[in-house]
């Protein structure tokens, strides 16, 4: 990876912000022995069944129970995403020689590790486990520069979606204070990660697209579109529906995924992501 002057200056600025916001993950959050069953652990509008007849059929305690499992799913899918992210960042940290960028990648790693610690503590303490991952990675061949571009672009896609949840729920007074604090602290760090990620993706995309043909560019855009769909699928987890008492968790998953209300919700949440991908020239079906 080559580093341009803009990315160097951005890394310098983000390093200062990360140093100012540095926190001790073991003391920054106080963990109650048990959660208040009356409290919302996840905002109802963000529950995957919201807006569907399945949601309408639930009474208030069942909605709050489902919201707790949705919170655990959100934290679990973040753990899985961040495991992959940490491995990829660590592998790339010293592939180039810019010391400001290296320093920022260390902050990035540190902050992602703290997030995982909080998500894991919440799930293990209150659910007793994390929800397992259904993604599988297969080794494949990449053109020079392609793997780095896809890695940072996937991180950006994942974090844009996550951050829309965090930004809203981190300010939602209806939420249990613990859940709200986790979302807010996550958002504060992710805002820096997103600024860095978008800048990195722009640089890697310009370099890679200048070397590849229109067909490969189209493949990259289509891949990111498919990755976005796959990322969204994880928000509709049959394990959650099973734990929340649904008799047909897979039928519930399909009904929720296909319902117009949830399609509209996903489109609304992805507005910033879609705008950024379009600005970067990475939106699917965009002319080469």
């Amino acid at each position: 990876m080559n580093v341009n002057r803009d990315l160097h200056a951005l890394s310098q600025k983000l390093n200062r912000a990360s140093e100012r916001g540095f926190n001790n993950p073991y003391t920054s959050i106080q963990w109650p022995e048990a959660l208040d069953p009356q409290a919302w652990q996840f905002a109802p509008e963000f529950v995957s069944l919201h807006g569907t007849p399945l949601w309408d059929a639930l009474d208030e305690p069942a909605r709050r129970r489902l919201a707790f499992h949705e919170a655990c799913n959100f934290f679990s899918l973040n753990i899985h995403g961040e495991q992959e992210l940490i491995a990829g960042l660590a592998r790339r940290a010293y592939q180039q020689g810019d010391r400001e960028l290296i320093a920022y990648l260390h902050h990035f790693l540190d902050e992602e590790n703290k997030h995982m610690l909080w998500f894991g503590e919440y799930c293990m303490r209150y659910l007793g486990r994390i929800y397992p991952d259904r993604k599988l990675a297969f080794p494949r061949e990449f053109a020079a520069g392609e793997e780095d571009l896809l890695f940072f672009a996937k991180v950006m896609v994942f974090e844009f979606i996550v951050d829309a949840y965090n930004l809203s729920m981190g300010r939602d007074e209806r939420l249990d204070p613990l859940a709200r604090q986790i979302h807010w602290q996550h958002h504060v760090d992710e805002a820096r990660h997103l600024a860095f990620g978008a800048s990195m993706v722009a640089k890697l995309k310009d370099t890679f697209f200048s070397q590849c043909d229109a067909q490969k560019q189209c493949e990259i855009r289509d891949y990111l579109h498919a990755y976005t769909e796959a990322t969204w699928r994880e928000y509709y987890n049959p394990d959650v529906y099973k734990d929340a008492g649904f008799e047909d968790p897979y039928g519930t998953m399909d009904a929720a995924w296909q319902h117009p209300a949830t399609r509209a919700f996903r489109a609304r949440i992805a507005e910033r992501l879609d705008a950024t991908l379009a600005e970067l020239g990475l939106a699917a079906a965009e002319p080469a």
Partner: protein
Amino acid sequence: MSAADRDAVRAWILKTVPKLEPAQLTDDTKILKDRVITSLQIMDLILFIEARRKGSIDRTRMKPESFQSIRSICEAFFGGLDG
């Protein structure tokens, strides 16, 4: 596994990859190696298998070799082609 399971897996692949001609897909077609389906579609395939089995898949069976072909999928998750 029953012929119905094999037919269901085959139908899922053909539905997921509409450009694939049915005659091109045998029980031994290398669906991953030949990139008939992508790694991003595996999660959907896993969910399809789980729905058909009416339960989660044992995570130790979720390895690339289990998803190489219709035959390997049936062996890993439905008791084999002749089971």
